[in-house]
């Protein structure tokens, strides 16, 4: 291409991600430190959830995080363009796993969600969210403003969203399928899809609510009814919400103190090491601890947004904002759930909750974000057809 040398040269000189050492220098260590802080909060909370016995949850958590940390940094070194090229493969693998789990996954709590990979149980729906962000970022990377305005251009990504959403919904896992759909919607939005198209889709979704409700499983309906009136069934489906609110509320401003929480240790609180770990923190460390944790998590999301804004290529921008939003959705749904603000959805708080699947996929996602940061100035123009 003639006349492009200056431009190209400038791009190349600013491509600081060529050498390994340079890349190491480029790793956002503050972000890594932030993640370590979040994992440390998780360690403390799990230590307490194990009633002072680290062997129960905390040690495993630390080891798992260490492994995931190394993996994340490794992913961070991978060239962002390579990652973009791998997106279609990843998508096929992700959907393949979802199909596999539908065919012969482990059944847990009335839903097929897990694939047993020996030492690790993988929840493909968690992985799928990361893959979806990746795939959509790759798709829209090629899209000019004009093309995004073309409805036919949106058919393919819409299908890309609907296939996994449908598969997850069939597991059945209403919460994750909704979160996946929302994530896809946010990607569309960030890519510049026009407002009115959202209006149509949202309007259609609202109209579809009665139809969806018809197809819900009984336990999913129970979740919604008990959310609307938890006291109606204090020992049954409403028990979790009520006990979580009691534990949380009784923490007060300063909390009951480390290992002093009563509701968690006396087992009033269900699944305190996984979905209700935030309640444990709020009970023992009060509003101060809860808000501190929330702030820490918010900073993690904020970093993803920073990466997105600083990225010179659309792929990195969309990827970072998608993964940041993915983590945000985990946090929001989980905390809203334990505070009784939305129906219980079985959504963990990754990096804090006990559980490998969510941590693994979240850390993979952050690895991608780091890669986007390291390669933020890489020459990665939209592909030409």
């Amino acid at each position, binding site marked *: 291409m003639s006349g492009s040398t200056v*431009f190209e040269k400038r791009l190349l000189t600013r491509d600081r991600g060529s050498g390994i050492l340079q890349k190491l220098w480029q790793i956002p260590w503050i972000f890594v430190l932030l993640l370590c802080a979040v994992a440390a909060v998780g360690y403390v909370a799990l230590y307490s959830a194990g009633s002072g016995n680290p062997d129960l949850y905390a040690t495993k958590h630390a080891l798992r995080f260490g492994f995931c940390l190394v993996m994340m940094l490794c992913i961070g070194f991978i060239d962002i363009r390579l990652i973009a090229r791998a997106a279609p493969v990843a998508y096929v693998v992700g959907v393949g796993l979802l199909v596999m789990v539908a065919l012969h996954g482990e059944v847990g709590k009335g839903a097929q969600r897990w694939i047993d990979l020996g030492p690790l149980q993988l929840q493909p729906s968690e992985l799928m969210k990361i893959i979806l962000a990746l795939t959509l970022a790759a798709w829209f990377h090629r899209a000019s403003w004009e093309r995004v305005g073309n409805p036919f251009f949106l058919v393919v990504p819409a299908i890309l969203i609907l296939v996994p959403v449908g598969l997850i919904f069939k597991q059945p896992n209403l919460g994750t399928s909704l979160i996946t759909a929302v994530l896809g919607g946010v990607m569309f939005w960030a890519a510049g899809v026009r407002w009115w198209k959202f209006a149509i889709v949202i309007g259609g979704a609202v109209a579809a609510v009665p139809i969806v409700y018809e197809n819900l499983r009984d336990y999913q309906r129970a979740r919604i009814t008990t959310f609307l009136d938890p006291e109606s069934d204090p020992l049954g489906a409403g028990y979790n919400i009520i006990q979580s609110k009691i534990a949380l509320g009784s923490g007060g401003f300063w909390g009951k103190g480390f290992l002093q929480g009563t509701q968690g240790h006396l087992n009033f609180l269900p699944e305190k090491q996984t979905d209700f770990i935030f309640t444990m923190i709020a009970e023992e460390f009060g509003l101060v601890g809860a808000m501190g944790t929330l702030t820490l998590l918010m900073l993690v999301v904020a970093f993803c947004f920073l990466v997105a804004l600083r990225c010179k290529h659309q792929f990195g921008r969309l990827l970072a904002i998608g993964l940041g939003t993915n983590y945000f959705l985990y946090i929001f749904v989980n905390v809203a759930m334990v505070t009784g603000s939305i129906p219980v959805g079985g959504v963990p708080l990754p990096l804090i909750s006990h559980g490998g699947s969510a941590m693994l996929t979240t850390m993979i996602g952050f690895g991608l974000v780091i890669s986007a940061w390291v390669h933020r100035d890489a020459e990665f123009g939209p592909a030409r057809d």
Partner: protein
Amino acid sequence: MKLPRLLRLRREKGGIANFTMRGVKREEEQRRSVFTRRALLLAGGQLGLFGFLGYRLHTLQVEQGERYATLAEENRLSARLLSPPRGRVLDRNGQVVAGNRLNWRALLVAEQTSDVGATLETFSRIVPLGEHERARVEREMRRRRRFVPVIVREFLTWEDMARIEVNAPDLPGILIDVGTTRIYPEAEHLAHIVGYVAPPAERDMDGDPLLQLPGIRVGRSGIERFHDLAMRGRAGSVQLEVNAVGRVIRELDRREGQPGQDIEISVDTELQKAIRGRIEEGTSVVVMNARNGEVLAMASQPSFDPNVFNSGVSNAQWRQLTNNRATPLINKATNGLYAPGSTFKMVVALAALEARVTTPYERVSCPGHFDLGESRFHCWNRGGHGALDQRTALKLSCDVYFYEMARRLGINRIAAMSRRFGLGVDLDIELPGARRGLVPTREWREAQGRGWALGDTVVHGIGQGFYQLTPLSLATMTARLATGRAVQPHLTRSIGGRPARGGRPEDWPSMGIAERDLRLMRDAMWAVVNEAGGTASIGRLPSGYGQMAGKTGTTQVRRVSREQRERGFRVESLPREYRPHALFVGYAPHDNPLYAVSVVVEHGTSGSAAAAPLARDAIVETFNRFRAVPQPGARVADAERSGR
């Protein structure tokens, strides 16, 4: 389409420009600015949602924090009451007459056995279980949580326990533990005095949390009921930390309760048993310490076994007790009502002396009958006693003399004197439900809408008529005659080791009756027993026991018609339930009164023949028990001391 300014996008014309470098750059710029705007908007939205979470946390933890803290405490804490041991009842010698027995029980904990049915099956091969007993266990098992023990069998014997222990490996989940149960070692001997306990009924719930405890008992009658609060004690409590399923994690606080207080009663169990051994159905005997009013024995036949009420009385047993014509549940000494008959004559005589309507020396002539207008009132001695003074009239129990005295006094002066002797008034005995009896007055009769005739007064002069008096009040009357003090009968000697009021003679005030008059009565009562011709010669004490003073009484339960009289009526020919009651009141020793006694033998026919010997034996037994066979001039205090 009109959009907000921030979101409005510049429309790019000329797609061809995209193929130039400049075009690429411009396109990139454009995408970037759209993205930046939308990313910031998204960030703002997410920040808003974080704000919402913060607001929720603030609402829950700060605004409603206290409410949830309370709920958390309620979740966590469980208070349990500790039942204190019930106070015992001891007799005056320290012998336990109502105590607590260890109750060995077999319990079953569901979670400690894999198969509840199999364990019960094995258990019933060792200790046979009834069909409904097993049904009850299984029902309770379903209702309770799996770690809560359920009682399989109570009151295990040593043999049962030994067999259970030996077979313990085959009985997973079976535990043996011990509770307490009320026991009355003397069974029916003191049932009317000590009373019994039963599980509390709805009306017993006085707000004492103790009554909510399983296995708790409240006093239903007698001392058990009267001193229920003192014997009950105060419940202790433990604060327990429990987990979500109610299992106890640890004890946070323990407050020991106060054990119930022991009650010492004045009754002497051996004396009571000896007297009960002598008497038949329908008889009641009261022996009192004449000086301080302590009841030493109070027997009423028949009686019942209070132990059956503790473990729950069956319907058949209850019907048998309540429908029994001999009324075993009723203490005749405090609830049996009788006309006093001639035992009442001292009261009339004293009233006459105090009212100065006669003198001890005035002689009244007895022709065998007393005429008042048209009516004729007979003396028990058809031939008449001739002229006799007061002492002789009492000794021979002449009716005509007392008809005359009553006529002179009027009914109300007799009633007033009766009340001073504890007749027809509340004696405050510690036996709930004790009757006060009835001493008629003119006003009482008029309140019934009936008139009072002089003839009524005359009949009441010999203790017949409307009188309804308890044997206990007659014993009280006798004690007052003997000591001149207004002693009241009581049973409580000490509560929780602290002496009760009324144990010393000085605790009781003088009746305010002239000592000279009282001495005349005592002399006449001595004559009744010890002088030739007295009506109760049979009541004379054996030698070495000193002398007793007393008075007989025989009261008609049915009017004897003139026709019968003329045909030479003999009481013995009547069916038993129409025969007169036999009464005797007395005290001993006559010259230094220590003990007062009253005996009522229902349908005993004759006070002299049926009641006096019982009174004699009761007094002799009392002396034997208290080893106070008084030598002439023996000091009361010595007797008291050696009696303890």
